[in-house]
């Protein structure tokens, strides 16, 4: 280990010790080296063993490193094997993150297995799985005939539990779009249409299809949610009757309104107590978000009242050319606002060109104005249940061109889940720690800062000076 001469000896000094016996000294040196090597080997083996069988305990106040109750419940409920195939490059950090999360789940259900596929070394396998080579997590369950899978591109406890929740259901939810009135269609990729939305809903386990009310005078029974996506051509009276019948028998509905088109749905308006206000909504606050013109309504935290759909939304919603709504409360239904426009908004009745501003004493109304509303009714059938209806004064925010902006997609997913009565996906929540909020105006912080930054160092320097003087004098 070392080959030094004894350092405490002063060679050539007056009390120079006798030279030790050369052989004995070499043996001792050799023995010391061997002991050193042996000690290192023992420590290395123990280190290896400790990594082989690790144990962990979460002592944080809110159990931040453990799964939420809902995740544990969801993963424990599986009685079939769950296969997690991670298509991921060799990056150790990414793989470790996947391993860590999956291990937390498999602690509660040993039937969960994880397999890594490296797209660089197994391209054929990746092609066979039709996986995204950039990284994808494929969670699957069931045998050949009942095979179900979910794919995740972003990894979090929320997304993983969401995927497991969908896999645990045998049937997908049916979202039916009404067609035949020049609505936004889920079939086209053009800017104003809904193909992207449909694809995203499918990932959530919400299957979309379109029906014509002319050929289907009764809306299919398996419909979980009916969508009226901003029709531009009028409904026939028979179609309106079909809609009213669906609503009165407790069907869930999402109605996206574009004010510019009168499509003969006044009866539905009356049934729900909601009507669009004339004019297009302009929002002066959208400028601060970089919008080119004020027809974009920007909805941030302050304009999202408490509602299950609204919780934990990070970015603002962006609604192009929205229509404000007016609500008349009706007996037998509870109504809760989903979002309002900002205070700097108003309904512009004139043309949107040049310098536009709010005109007093006209039909124009100043914000905040209602843009989205959720209605709930109790349906008395054999099994009493809750009917859910949402009316939004815009369809563009869900269109291919805009759905990726702000929190539009996330909000859409939450809204559709809520409407399709899939509360399990909405109720995912983790504990907020007690020390989460610090009041920035607290005086204690100022006093503390001053004391620690200047007071304490000064005391130390005074002690140092005193010690230095003491040593110099003494």
């Amino acid at each position: 280990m070392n080959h030094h001469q004894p350092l405490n000896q002063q060679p050539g000094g007056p009390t120079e010790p006798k030279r030790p016996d050369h052989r004995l000294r070499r043996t001792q040196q050799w023995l010391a080296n061997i002991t050193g090597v042996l000690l290192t080997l023992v420590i290395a083996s123990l280190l290896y063993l400790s990594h082989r069988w690790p144990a962990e305990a979460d002592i944080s106040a809110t159990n931040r490193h453990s799964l939420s109750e809902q995740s544990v419940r969801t993963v424990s409920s599986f009685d079939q094997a769950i296969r997690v195939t991670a298509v991921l490059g060799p990056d150790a950090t990414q793989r470790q993150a996947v391993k860590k999360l999956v291990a937390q789940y498999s602690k509660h259900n040993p039937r969960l297995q994880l397999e890594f596929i490296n797209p660089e070394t197994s391209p054929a396998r990746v092609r066979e799985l039709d996986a995204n080579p950039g990284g994808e997590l494929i969670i699957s369950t069931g045998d050949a005939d009942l095979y179900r899978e979910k794919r995740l591109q972003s990894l979090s406890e929320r997304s993983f539990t969401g995927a497991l929740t969908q896999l645990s259901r045998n049937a997908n939810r049916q979202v039916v779009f009404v067609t035949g009135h020049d609505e936004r269609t889920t079939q086209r990729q053009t800017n104003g249409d809904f193909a992207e939305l449909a694809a995203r809903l499918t990932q959530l386990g919400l299957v979309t299809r379109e029906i014509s009310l002319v050929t289907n005078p009764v809306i299919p029974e398996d419909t979980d949610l009916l969508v009226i996506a901003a029709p531009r051509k009028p409904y026939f009276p028979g179609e309106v009757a079909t809609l009213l019948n669906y609503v009165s028998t407790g069907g869930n509905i999402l109605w996206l309104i574009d004010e510019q088109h009168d499509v003969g749905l006044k009866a539905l308006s009356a049934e729900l107590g909601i009507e669009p206000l004339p004019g297009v909504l302009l929002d002066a606050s959208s400028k601060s978000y970089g919008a080119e013109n004020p027809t974009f309504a920007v909805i941030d935290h302050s304009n999202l009242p408490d509602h299950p759909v609204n919780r934990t939304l990070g970015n603002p919603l962006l609604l192009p050319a929205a229509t404000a709504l007016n609500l008349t409360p009706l007996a037998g239904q509870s109504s809760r606002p989903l979002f309002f426009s900002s205070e700097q908004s108003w309904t512009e009745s004139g043309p949107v060109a040049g310098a536009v501003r709010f005109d007093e004493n006209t039909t124009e109304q100043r914000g905040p104005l209602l843009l989205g509303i959720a209605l709930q009714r109790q349906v008395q059938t054999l099994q009493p249940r809750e009917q859910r209806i949402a009316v939004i004064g815009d369809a563009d925010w869900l269109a291919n061109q805009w759905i990726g902006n702000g929190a539009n997609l996330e909000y859409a997913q939450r809204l559709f889940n809520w409407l399709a009565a899939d509360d399990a996906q909405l109720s995912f929540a983790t504990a907020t720690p007690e020390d989460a909020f610090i009041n920035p105006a607290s005086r204690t912080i100022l006093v503390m800062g001053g004391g620690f930054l200047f007071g304490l160092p000064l005391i130390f320097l005074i002690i140092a000076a005193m010690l230095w003087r003491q040593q110099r004098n003494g």
Partner: protein
Amino acid sequence: MLTIAAREFNALFRSPLAWIIAAILQIFFAWYFLSTLEQYILIQDKLALQDHPPGITAFVTFRYLAPCSALLLIICPLLTMRSYADEYRQGTFTLLRTAPVSNSAIVMGKFFGVYAFVALLLCLALLMPLCLVYITNVDFATLLWSLAGLLAVAALCTSAGMLFSSLTRHTLVAAIASSTLLIILWVIGKHAVSSPVIQQALGTLATSSHLGSFFQGLVSSRDIVYFVLLTSLFIGLTMIRVNNLGWQGSQGR
């Protein structure tokens, strides 16, 4: 052993340099802590939206205390560099060895003397997060476990500093060599290596990869064992070195 530890501790405690180091450290700690606090206040709304959001305690332990532990890579070798090297130079080591104590007691005594001083310095760093009790409900378990993390790094750095001090009579060489080893040990697993086995082995050896759990309120056996083993290794090697000197010395008489 206690006498030796007390002697070592007193020597540091009475040195003006140690107090100047403490003052500089305190300014650094306070500045860093306050900027972390400011950062938290600015983003607390966004953090609250996350799954399993951190509170101020978890934020401060991870963003302030964990980076502070890297300072020990420099401070500990500076405090230990004189432990043996200076005694060799002044010839007082022979005197120490003639005292009626075993070589292992000398090594442990010297280790605990410096370690107690480093622990006091670490309490300075912890003082500010502790004062958060005046403004919120602090997560004490997370805070105390992060102190354990700091003490674990301190033990590793002190023992490594001691080993190098016992190998040379040049104090500066001891400090630079031990700091270099500690820094290499700190960053060793950070770079991607083509072989996963080597990558894993390097990750196992890297100090930084064993710190996260301590500062996030997670008790992990592998991380505790890592610090205990490596500290034991350095202390063990120091003992072998001092014993070897002892044999050679006694043979020399």
